[in-house]
């Protein structure tokens, strides 16, 4: 079976991991960095991803996309409160947010696909093979639209997404593999943009999720905002400048706010320095951990209600939890650890690397799917109740939240008017009574044979698969004929749109690969020119004049090719130069060897 990698596609940071000798490992880049910033920037040289894109946040804020995960599976109306904080331009088409970058608009799955492609390339470079299959993690509390959007992102990136797995449960796999314990654990995952709590029972290699809860709009980003608001107010007070109207400076404020927050996890106070617009100099000040905590507590305490609800749904109390596992960068904050400890009545387990554990768990799940790991099995749940709209705008629940997946429910439909040929069905997700308070997932029309009212009997099966994604099928019970259903997502890309985006992305991939090849060939040519120049300078006088001339000719031909745009021509000229300079290089090596031996005693050499 081809290799399947595990990917943590985070709001702030993303990682890719694989299974090596029954142990999951995160794949680093050339410099040993394991995290890729989840940032995409449009530069004059095209789109770039990761840490280099992050540098563009302050230079080019309206063309640099961060925290795109907050927009997955959403419409513009869902993110009204966020708009003021994001410097890039958002619009909506067909229920899907679009992000404007230069001349083009991109859907959130397309932006996410760029991050995925970066991870794919990283894995391919590291493992020396092509990667086409992946397990991707999502917050446990992601709804169907958000999961589907993540799957679309994978497709657009050229990855077959074999499984969407929940982040806290992925973490539990990595934890379980390492600790080999049995018992009941709670995984508390507070990252940059989302919060999840999952309660699991670990027994005989089975990881059974008992309940999950969370908030897909709660994380470290919210703490950064509180600090941003504080700094902006202080700057206004002290310098009379409204930084809010300078997007580039706002990004500088945001980055400094985040850095200060991170520093205060280790220190009790920290210095703040922010460059002001219009040559107004710098804003400087001091921030203490106490100040941060007095602001942060209201945000952090919003994680406690979901924890209590999850415990209640699991039929447990805090003292039934054997261990609380912390995941996500924000759990490094001392205040978070205190609040978690107060709620569960025991110090949390913080020996896992909170940045990497989710990706590691995704790699374990990937290994389970490829048949490598056979003793572990994850039984996850659906986080939200699934239902349909019934008379009077009321939601009738079909599959309750925290039901183990795969889960299915059947419902029989009929007509109430003679000759009626269709029934419209509206699928919803959420815990509220009324349709309008729940999330609309999709609509479809059931085809019905024209018969007297009440006679048709169409059975519809709603199945939530192991990815937590809904599949709908229908059967006419009178004829046993199954019916194909075209479900129209309320907040998602249509199949044809995803297909077009995949095509586009392959076109770009071809362009990207071309550009990459040219850049690499040029870099290699430059270093070859440099070393040959050096050889000529040092040993040119030691070889025949014709030989030296031949090397010079090949050199100038390579220089010319380097400035053109054909990587193959560059490689060909490089080969010619290498051939022409082969003898020269040997002579030069000999000469330098002799030089280094001069002045040394014979005994030192042997």
């Amino acid at each position, binding site marked *: *079976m081809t290799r399947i990698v595990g990917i943590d596609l985070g709001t702030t940071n993303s990682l890719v991991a694989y299974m090596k000798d029954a142990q999951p490992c995160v794949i680093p880049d050339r410099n040993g960095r394991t995290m890729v910033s989840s940032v995409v920037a449009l530069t004059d040289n095209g789109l770039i991803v990761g840490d280099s894109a992050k540098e563009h946040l302050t230079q080019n804020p309206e063309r640099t996309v961060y925290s795109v995960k907050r927009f997955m599976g959403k419409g513009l109306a869902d993110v009204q409160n966020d708009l003021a904080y994001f410097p890039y331009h958002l619009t909506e088409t067909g229920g899907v947010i679009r992000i404007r970058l230069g001349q083009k608009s991109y859907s959130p799955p397309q932006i996410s696909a760029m991050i995925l492609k970066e991870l794919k390339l990283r894995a391919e470079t590291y493992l020396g093979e092509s990667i086409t299959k992946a397990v991707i993690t999502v917050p446990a509390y992601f709804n169907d639209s958000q999961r589907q959007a993540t799957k679309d992102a994978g497709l657009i990136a050229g990855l077959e997404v*074999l*499984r969407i797995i929940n982040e806290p449960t992925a973490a539990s796999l990595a934890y379980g593999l390492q600790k080999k314990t049995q018992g009941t654990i709670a995984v508390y995952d507070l990252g940059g943009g989302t919060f999840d709590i999952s309660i699991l029972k670990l*027994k*005989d290699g*089975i990881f059974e999720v008992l309940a999950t809860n969370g908030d897909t709009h709660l994380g470290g980003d919210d703490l950064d905002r509180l600090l941003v608001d504080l700094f902006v107010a202080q700057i206004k007070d002290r310098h009379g400048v409204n930084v809010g109207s300078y997007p580039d400076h706002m990004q500088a404020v945001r980055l400094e706010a985040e850095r200060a927050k991170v520093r205060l996890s280790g220190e009790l106070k920290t210095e703040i320095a922010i460059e002001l617009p219009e040559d107004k100099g710098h804003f400087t000040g001091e921030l203490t951990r106490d100040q941060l905590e007095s602001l942060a507590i209201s945000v952090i305490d919003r994680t406690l209600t979901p924890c209590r609800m999850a415990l209640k749904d699991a039929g447990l109390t805090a003292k039934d939890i054997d261990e609380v596992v912390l995941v996500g960068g924000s759990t490094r904050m001392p205040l978070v650890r205190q609040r978690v400890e107060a709620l569960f009545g025991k110090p949390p387990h913080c020996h896992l690397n909170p940045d990497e554990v989710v990706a590691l768990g995704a790699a374990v*799940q990937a290994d*389970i*799917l*490829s*048949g490598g790991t*056979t003793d572990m*099995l*994850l*039984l996850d749940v659906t986080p939200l109740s699934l239902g*349909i*709209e*019934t*008379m009077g*705008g009321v939601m*009738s629940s079909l599959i309750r939240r925290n*039901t*183990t*997946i*795969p*889960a*299915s429910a*059947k*419902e*029989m*439909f*009929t*007509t*109430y*008017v003679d*000759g*009626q*040929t*269709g*029934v*419209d*069905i*509206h699928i919803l997700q959420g815990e509220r009574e009324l349709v309008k308070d729940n999330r609309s997932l999709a609509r479809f*029309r*059931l085809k019905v044979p024209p018969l007297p009212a009440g006679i048709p*009997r169409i059975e519809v099966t709603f*199945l939530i*698969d*192991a990815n937590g994604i809904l599949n709908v099928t229908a*059967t006419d*019970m*009178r*004829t*046993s004929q199954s019916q194909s259903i075209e479900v129209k997502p309320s907040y998602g890309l249509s199949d044809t749109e995803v297909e077009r985006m995949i095509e586009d992305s392959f076109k770009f991939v071809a362009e990207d690969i071309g550009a990459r090849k040219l850049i690499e060939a040029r870099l290699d040519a430059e270093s070859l020119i440099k070393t040959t120049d050096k050889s000529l300078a040092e040993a040119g006088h030691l070889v025949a004049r014709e030989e030296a001339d031949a090397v010079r000719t090949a050199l100038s031909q390579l220089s010319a090719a380097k400035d053109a745009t054909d990587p193959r021509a560059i490689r060909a000229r490089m080969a010619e130069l290498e051939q022409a300079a082969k003898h020269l290089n040997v002579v030069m090596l000999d000469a330098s060897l002799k030089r280094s031996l001069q002045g040394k005693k014979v005994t030192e050499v042997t």
Partner: protein
Amino acid sequence: MVYTPCPFLLMDNNQPSTHPDPRRQLQMARSMCWHCQSEMSGEYFCERCVKVQPVSKDTDYFSCLGVPRRLTLDPQKLEAKFYELSRAFHPDFYQSKSPTEQTISLSNAAVLNTAYRTLRDPIQRAEYLLGLETGSVKDIRTSPPADLFEEILVLQDILEEYRASEHDSDEGRRLRDTLKTEQQALERRKEEMESRLRELFVDWDKLQDAGEATSPARVERDRILKQMRDLLSHRTYINNIVNDLAATIA
């Protein structure tokens, strides 16, 4: 053409249709392996080609989990069986199998999960068994116990009054205290019902163990089922009110 603005649900899913019954067809298919067509004798896997077989629609949850039709079940054993079958059916282990096997794995896992969820909970288990023994489950309508009828009517009035009142006023506090007392009384009543139910569960299991088909045994069977149905229906009614009360005064 006229379309309903929202779907019209049939309340009773278990009513047999007058047309070719797909369940019958499935049952016939079940006795033969879908893949190699050999006679099926194994439970969920063909003995000859080792392919997974679909759980028949006629398989009730008790036989799906391989436990007797009893009302007191050992939760540990039930869980062990659920884990064992999860390892057999879960889609994780069918990633490299054929599309047919993947479909079977998915639907079997879904049935298994429903079966376990139903049988794990004693109340749901009893309601399900009642459905199996006497017909459609959905016939269990919730109803107030006759002796509590008056009391509940009064309670509804107080609830209304409280909802309309200023919660922070003396009147509001007085009403809330009354409601709290009522809630506690109803909770006690619910516990009583549950303990009576547990006695009936034991009676039922004894009857099953004896396995007699005599006419006194049949009378006893009907008595247990009837009492169980009434108790379940009253218990759900009380439970709903208690939840409602808790939510209102929280």
